[in-house]
């Protein structure tokens, strides 16, 4: 080779340039996002760093999934949906074989929430929670037809009151839904059409704006305000959100200071009143204004409660609105201790209004002056109530136990008759509440009045 100055200069410069380019190109490759997330996780949890590509191979698909390389520390969603069996992709969709966020999240069903009602059939259906021979297991169908999803009664009542329809029979739901597997109740509807968002009737336009788009049903995302944070679809109840909407788990990809996230990546059936109150007890309807008036004793309109306030005091203020009337047990217990699975998730029929569906009253557990509460002995055929008990760690149920049976045939596995004593075990706290039936007590009720407003006349808790 030549040894001229020009050549040697060029040669060394060329090699140096090549080295520089190589070095810079390599730098660009070195710290992908997934490594940064893992570093963050190990720092946060104080564990020795072990940065590596992580995979799970769920039994359902047999194919590797790399999601946990970034989402390291995310809790298993529930013990009945174990990660080793289900993995991530069977519920969430997405691309499991890449470590780049935008590629991985292509095809994610429902964004962060695969239980959103638009995608719930693919995520949770597929022969698991839909289309099974046991109707009480087909939650995908029941919930989509339930009032919290269809809002049929609200839509019909307001439109009727303002003259947009000639009777109070529901024609519209939030989305179109049909009941094609048989109507079992007296007033079940066969279908609802989707609410006409393109209608030029000012009543419909105002209703859509003030009520539908404002978050009053399961398909609508929550208002981004304290006490309102929740998911849509099944997760609206079964994935707990804090009143502040902050994430409290260990997944490094979810910021801890950004409101609008679940508290933790977990299903629960022990749903506390705070979760129901992300929609309910937030204010009052004004029919005249066709609007919803937020309660002003709590955020967003009112001042936040002090952190020093004891839990009992907090519960007393937060639970019901200032105008609310309630008995001691309605305050001490959580909503699901009284309200049944069918009331919340529907019974498979499309019902026209809340009055049809919400049937739990005081007499369900306490009976009347003439009759003791209806009791049934649990047998192996009562799979629904046994399954509900198995999913809730706060109370136990065994074949042979005697439990309350509601007027619609639902068994309340947490309300038992043990050795002559009625005991309710809270589904949320596990605390036991022994109680007495009306019959044989000093109650002076008029037997023909069994609505709770009547019982409140004597038994209202004085705040």
């Amino acid at each position: 080779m030549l040894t001229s100055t020009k050549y040697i200069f060029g040669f060394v410069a060329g090699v140096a340039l090549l080295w520089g380019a190589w070095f810079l190109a390599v730098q660009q490759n070195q710290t992908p996002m997934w490594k940064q997330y893992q570093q963050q996780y190990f720092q946060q949890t104080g564990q020795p760093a072990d940065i590596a590509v992580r995979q799970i191979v769920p039994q359902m698909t047999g194919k590797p999934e790399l999601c946990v390389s970034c989402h390291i520390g995310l809790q298993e969603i529930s013990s009945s949906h174990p990660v080793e069996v289900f993995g991530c992709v069977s519920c969430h969709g997405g691309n499991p074989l890449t470590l780049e966020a935008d590629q991985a999240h292509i095809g994610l069903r429902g964004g962060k929430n695969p239980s959103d009602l638009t995608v719930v059939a693919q995520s949770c259906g597929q022969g698991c929670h839909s289309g099974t021979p046991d109707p009480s297991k087909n939650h995908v169908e029941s919930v989509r037809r339930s009032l919290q999803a269809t809002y049929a009664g609200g839509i019909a009542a307001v439109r009727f009151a303002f003259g947009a329809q000639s009777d109070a029979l529901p024609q519209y739901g939030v989305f179109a839904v049909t009941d094609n597997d048989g109507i079992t109740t007296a007033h079940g509807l066969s279908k609802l059409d989707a609410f006409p968002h393109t209608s030029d009737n000012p009543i419909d336009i105002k209703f859509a704006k003030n009520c539908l788009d404002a978050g009053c049903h399961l398909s609508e995302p929550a208002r981004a305000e304290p006490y309102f944070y929740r998911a849509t679809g099944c997760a609206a109840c079964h994935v707990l959100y804090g009143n502040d909407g902050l994430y409290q788990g260990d997944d490094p990809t979810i910021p801890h200071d950004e409101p609008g996230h679940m508290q933790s990546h977990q299903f629960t059936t022990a749903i506390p009143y705070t979760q129901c109150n992300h929609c309910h007890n937030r204010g009052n309807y004004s029919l005249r204004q066709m609007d919803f008036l937020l309660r002003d004793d709590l955020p967003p309109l009112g001042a936040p409660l002090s952190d020093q306030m004891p839990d009992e005091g907090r519960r007393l203020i937060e639970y019901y609105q200032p105008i609310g009337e309630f008995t001691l047990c309605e305050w001490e217990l959580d909503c699901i201790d009284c309200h049944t699975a069918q009331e919340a998730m529907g019974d498979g029929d499309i019902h026209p209004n809340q009055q049809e569906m919400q049937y739990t009253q005081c007499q369900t557990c306490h009976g009347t002056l003439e009759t003791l509460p209806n009791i049934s002995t649990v047998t192996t055929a009562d799979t629904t109530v046994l399954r509900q008990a198995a999913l809730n760690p706060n109370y136990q149920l065994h074949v042979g136990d005697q439990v309350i049976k509601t007027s619609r045939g639902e068994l309340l596995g947490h309300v038992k008759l043990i050795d002559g004593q009625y005991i309710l075990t809270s589904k949320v706290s596990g605390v036991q509440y022994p109680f007495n039936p009306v019959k044989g007590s000093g109650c002076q009720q008029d037997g023909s009045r069994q609505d709770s407003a009547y019982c409140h006349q004597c038994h209202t808790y004085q705040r």
Partner: protein
Amino acid sequence: MKRTLQRQIKNIQLWRSNKSFIYNLHPPRIPASGARFTYTFGLGGLAILSTIVAVITGAYLMFYYVPTLDEAHASVAFINSVVSWGALVRSLHYWSAQAMVVTTVLHLARVVYTGGYRPPRDFNWLIGVGLLLLVLLWNFTGFTLRWDEESIWALLVGTNLLKVIPNIGNQLYVWVVGDTTLGGAAILRFYAWHVFGLTIPALVGIAYHIWRIRVDGGISHPVASTKASRATVTRETLLSRELLTTLFALAVLLLLAGYIVPPLGSPADLSASGTAEIKAPWFFLSIQELLRYLPPLWAGWILPLGGLVLLALIPFFDSKGGGRGIWFASERWKVQVVFTLIFAAIIILTAIAWWR
């Protein structure tokens, strides 16, 4: 004894200058006028360098890419983010491929403007035009292997263009696509073309093209008239220039590959309506633009192929006279003007399509 052993050891050094392969591909002396950097800008050599980098990085990618409908896109995403150095290898492959097209086209322009197509180099010119076509097809087939939103439309339009050819169109479509519609057969076929079907003729063509240069008397250069213009350089000089150019070119490729990452859209879905802007790969943008105004047979076949045929026939139109080896020689003005007009038209069409 010791000295002979040392000498023997030195003799087996692979880089001993008068025994190496690349060294001997070059003639011992080259006319200085032909070896100047500003004469050829080393474009032909850069095209070969780009091809070598593309073939090597392509071979690496073959260890992970899966040419099936279900896994094509996923395997590219896998290479991009999971395989060690996968992103860099893919990026190098992409950039060397684009460099290949650019240097090939510029090399072609250089040959036109310096009259390097004149006999006896007319046959080599034809081979070169064929190589241009192969390079464009190489790039196009590689582009579609991504199987993402962007490339699926290009593949759809490109293959549907086959159908507009009268009489043989539909048969040709099935032959190319491997089925009556785009699907797994198309990926597999395009993969086979990209990896082997086009590579074999391209490698053979390149080898012939290089060999033919020596047979025809080396790089075409001005006819020597004075003693100064008869000056020559040794192959050492030429090789050192080539080595330096290689080093700088590789550095540029690495920087491009490191900093500008080739895109990867969401998996191909022909039922979706696609993104707002569906663009052909950049080297076919001029054809995409033409397809907006002219009937498909004209925009997709007659004009482009006609252009190629005109290119191929250049030595026919200008086979003798002066001006060989001189940039923009006025003796060859007709060919240069026609070429410039067509080249400019293609660039303008490309620019319009790019900035829509």
